[in-house]
């Protein structure tokens, strides 16, 4: 078998295999060297369980927030606001005098200061469902109110050519998430070893088998599959030190996922879209502590990724979302129930950050959705459309979000 040592930017990747280096890999390697030709990357992060946006980005200037959350509200930043009512816990981190970050998201503050973090308030779906399952379904498929089997991010990818990398779309997890399911090939990457193909011999033999087969319909997917798998393995076998001292360890599962994504991006294998998820945001009781713990990991993971990618963040955008928000008022158990409007975060070097976007609907009873939840004033598809257009160059937005009429852009990206 022929072995080729290919120097890709930043890391040496050894490709063992019969025949020439795959075209897509050569193309990806080439473009890595010329930043102008480099593809941009969009990473979607789903917080499953309906994350409590009001306690994540705290509307501390709105007195109703404290009225409705006597025990679980995050205290206002220590700058003279006297609405704390003796709440326990660290104060919010002031962002702009109206909104603050939950203190557990402290690692994201530098991103805000560097204007690489934008926040969009009161976002969500026009569909009123408060079923986790349905709402996640609608958000991932990008068709609220209607179940579609493929996902918005998959539809956002341009059609594949023979040069398209099989690693163009990676879904962190044991299977490809709905967001990335569809016509365009996507691959699931597990933090543990997904592709247990027995020993190396078995894997090599299977690869030869699919290379040599006369079965036209199976040989191409076969070849792509092995190329992708080998690439991931090879990348992961390298020693990896995150750049600039980035620390993923305290970032939990998301930290591990984002580190894997970072490694693959840096290996220049042609990643353009990625998906990761964090479970467990459904805080019906004892929210304050649980949310803090989760946010600590969440913020650490995102910040570590950003630090690790360094200059390359210019080409990358991460967007966070959750299927709906939670009730504005706390319930009797120190928690909140299913709501509607929520917050989305957009991070990246090219993001017009340091600003809270969207129209704050207010928390007075008549301003709330069904008198209980934060209302939605920006459709989540508005945010995603802009990012899909700007990052993936997708101009056919009706294909990505059928039935959606885009309004005035928010201006989330600089260029």
């Amino acid at each position, binding site marked *: 078998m022929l072995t080729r040592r290919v120097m890709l930017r930043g890391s040496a990747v050894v490709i063992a295999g019969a025949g020439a280096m795959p075209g897509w890999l050569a193309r990806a390697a080439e473009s890595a060297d010329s930043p102008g030709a480099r593809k941009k990357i969009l990473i979607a992060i789903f917080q499953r369980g309906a994350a409590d946006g009001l306690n994540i980005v705290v509307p501390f200037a709105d007195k109703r927030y404290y*009225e409705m959350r*006597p*025990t679980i509200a995050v205290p206002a930043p220590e700058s003279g606001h006297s609405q704390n*009512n*003796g709440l326990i816990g660290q104060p919010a981190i002031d962002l702009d005098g109206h909104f603050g970050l939950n203190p557990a998201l402290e690692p994201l503050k530098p991103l805000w200061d560097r204007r690489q973090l934008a926040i969009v308030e009161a976002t969500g779906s026009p569909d009123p*469902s408060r*079923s986790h*399952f*349905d709402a996640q*379904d609608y958000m991932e498929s990008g068709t609220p109110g209607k*179940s*579609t*089997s493929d996902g918005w991010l998959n539809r956002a990818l341009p059609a594949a050519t023979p040069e398209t990398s*099989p690693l163009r779309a990676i*879904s962190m997890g*044991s*299977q*490809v998430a709905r967001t990335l399911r569809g016509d365009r*090939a*996507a*691959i*699931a990457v597990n933090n543990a070893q*997904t*592709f*247990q*193909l*027995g*020993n190396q*011999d*078995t894997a090599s*033999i*299977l690869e*030869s*088998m*699919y*290379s*040599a*087969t*006369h*079965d036209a*319909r*199976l*040989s191409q*997917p*076969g070849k*792509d*599959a092995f190329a*992708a*798998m080998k690439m991931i393995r090879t990348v992961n076998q390298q020693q990896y030190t995150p750049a600039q001292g980035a620390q993923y360890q305290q970032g939990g599962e998301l930290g591990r996922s984002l580190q894997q994504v970072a490694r693959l991006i840096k290996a220049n294998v042609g990643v353009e879209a990625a998906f990761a998820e964090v479970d467990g945001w459904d805080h019906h*009781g*004892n929210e304050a502590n649980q949310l803090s713990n989760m946010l600590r990991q969440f913020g650490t993971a995102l910040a570590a990724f950003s630090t690790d990618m360094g200059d390359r963040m210019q080409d990358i955008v991460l967007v966070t979302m959750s299927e709906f928000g939670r009730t504005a008022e706390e319930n*009797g*158990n*120190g928690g909140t129930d299913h709501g509607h409007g929520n917050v989305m975060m957009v991070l990246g070097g090219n993001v017009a950050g340091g600003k809270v976007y969207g129209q704050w609907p207010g928390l007075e009873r008549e301003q709330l959705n069904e008198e209980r939840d934060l209302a939605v004033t920006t459709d989540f598809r508005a945010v995603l459309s802009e990012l899909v257009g700007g990052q993936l160059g997708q101009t056919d937005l009706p294909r990505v979000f059928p039935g959606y009429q885009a309004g005035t852009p928010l201006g989330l990206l600089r260029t």
Partner: protein
Amino acid sequence: MKRSLLLVATATIAAATLPFLSLFAAGTPGPFETRLPPDRRVIQVLNRLTFGPRPGDVEEVRRIGLEKWIDLQLHPERIPESPVLETRLEPYETLRMDFVTVLKDYMQPQPAMAMLQAPNLNTLMSQEERRKVMNGTAEERRAALVAMDPEKRKQVLLTMPPTNLESLPEFKQEADDARKAQQQQMQAEVRKRNPPLEDLLAPEQIAIARNGSPEQVKALFDELDPEKRVQVAFRLPPQVGAEFPGLRREGMRAQQPQQLVSSDLRAGKLLRAVYSNQQLEEVLVDFWFNHFNVYEGKSVQNAALSYRALLTSYERDAIRPHVLGHFKDLLLAVAQHPAMLYYLDNWQSMAPDADDRLQVGPFARPFVSYAVQQPPNRQPHGLNENYGRELMELHTMGVNGGYTQQDVIEVARCFTGWTVRKPNDPGFIFLDFMHDEGEKTVLGHKIAANGGEKDGLQVFDILAHHPATAHFISKQLAQRFVADEPPPALVDRMAQTFLKTDGDLRAVLQTMFASQEFLSEGAWQAKIKSPFEMVVSALRATGADTLDIGALNQKISDLGEPLYGKVEPNGYPLTGDAWLGTADLLGRLSFATALVTGKVAGVKVDATRWDGKDAAAISRDLLGRQAAPETLEAISPGPAPASLAALIIGSPEFNRR
């Protein structure tokens, strides 16, 4: 080599021009006209009428004779069922229950935790006390609270809005303490109902439960009392848990009975597919369920948790009895099953003026179906076209069948009133007052006014006899059993049979199985196996012993075909392209290796059966015939026999049928 190339080339050209050429001359026969050699015919039949040959199946079919064997499969009542299957199915009691019992005994929501209910201020305090505490001055409030006994005060403090406490700092601590205590009580209650392993076992026992071998775990169980055994079994990691399916099931029944119902449903499907001797019936149940797809997770108001409990009955009572019967009977049974009535929303479809008539005569409340009891602003009132549309688009005529939007509306009108009785007994009922009694025109047929329930039956009559239906159903069957693009001539002949026999599905299948196309080169290995088919055929081919289906179910889901999990009514695709994603193919390959090396929880494979055999021999064992030369070449020089088997199961050949 050259000859077959020439044949392929000619066949390709011939296939393209076949319809025209065959009219004029007996030109070179196309692939669908070229009969398979005898040894391949047996394999073809096994690949198509079953979920894949088991060791010994090829010999059995040869012994019985091909035509006779096919005829037997078309009459499953003549085939003695496998005793292994019956033993394996025994523990899954919900498979045999009617849905009313299942709803009652398994699907009740967990009892609301009493603590979750905030104490009602109205019952706690007298009116005077309440006035003082809620609306009085700070002085009055203080006095009232001080006068209460501490227990009562605690409850009141828990429920009072915080603004009322603002000027009473001396009670703030008490209020905080009360809240904390309540939270702790709740957590304790949750823990008691759902104890983690830490509450059940000593640390060294936990280590065994989490990481021990099945033998060690068994020894641990012998030490525990029965109740604890069940609780621990339910919390074992999947790999080990699969070794104790009985205990784990007990745990599930106690903790999460709803999950038991879903679990049983999948066990039934998988075990039957693997073990049943009445294979064609199983293949047909899979096909027709998919044709009349419903989604397990359908969200129905007032039936949110219970919908999934209906699927067992749907498959068993509405689909299975009719797969070899008349299409119109299948159509009716499906339409009247609550699973379909809910899934396509027909249960709440009603005439626009139905509400007005609720006030009148025998249909005044409280005789009203719960379909109309919902608050008006939450429940759509009026016609719901969903079932009407899908009935024609997906169930009968097909999207190009020639119906119009107006037909959709008219059909929907015919089915108004076809609904369910009530949430815990959702059997079919026809409710007059929901029904649109006007005259309707469906596909050119006039349906007289005031037909009541007969309107719907007339629609079925029209659809079941429509040529478009005959054609659509025939094509779908041909796609499943012959090729992704079945020859139009075959589909036409099947459609003729359909129309001539009043939709006798057995007759249509007979036409298909007896056709030259079915046993032709064109149909040979023409289908890509779906994930379910791939997994089941691997279990059958390797003679695997399937004891627990949890891991298998997860695998099939990971490969892209979650059982009972297709959201859209069109079901999973009948053609192969959907299954060829990068991740999917690697998933199949990793399953192949895991299966043969004993790494699939709940499944045991005896790899010694392949000892001493080379790749060619093993391929004959698993595929029923020798693998392609390229495949065998890639395998040699050979690894160990178990690996050989894994490689064959992972081969392109094995992924086709």
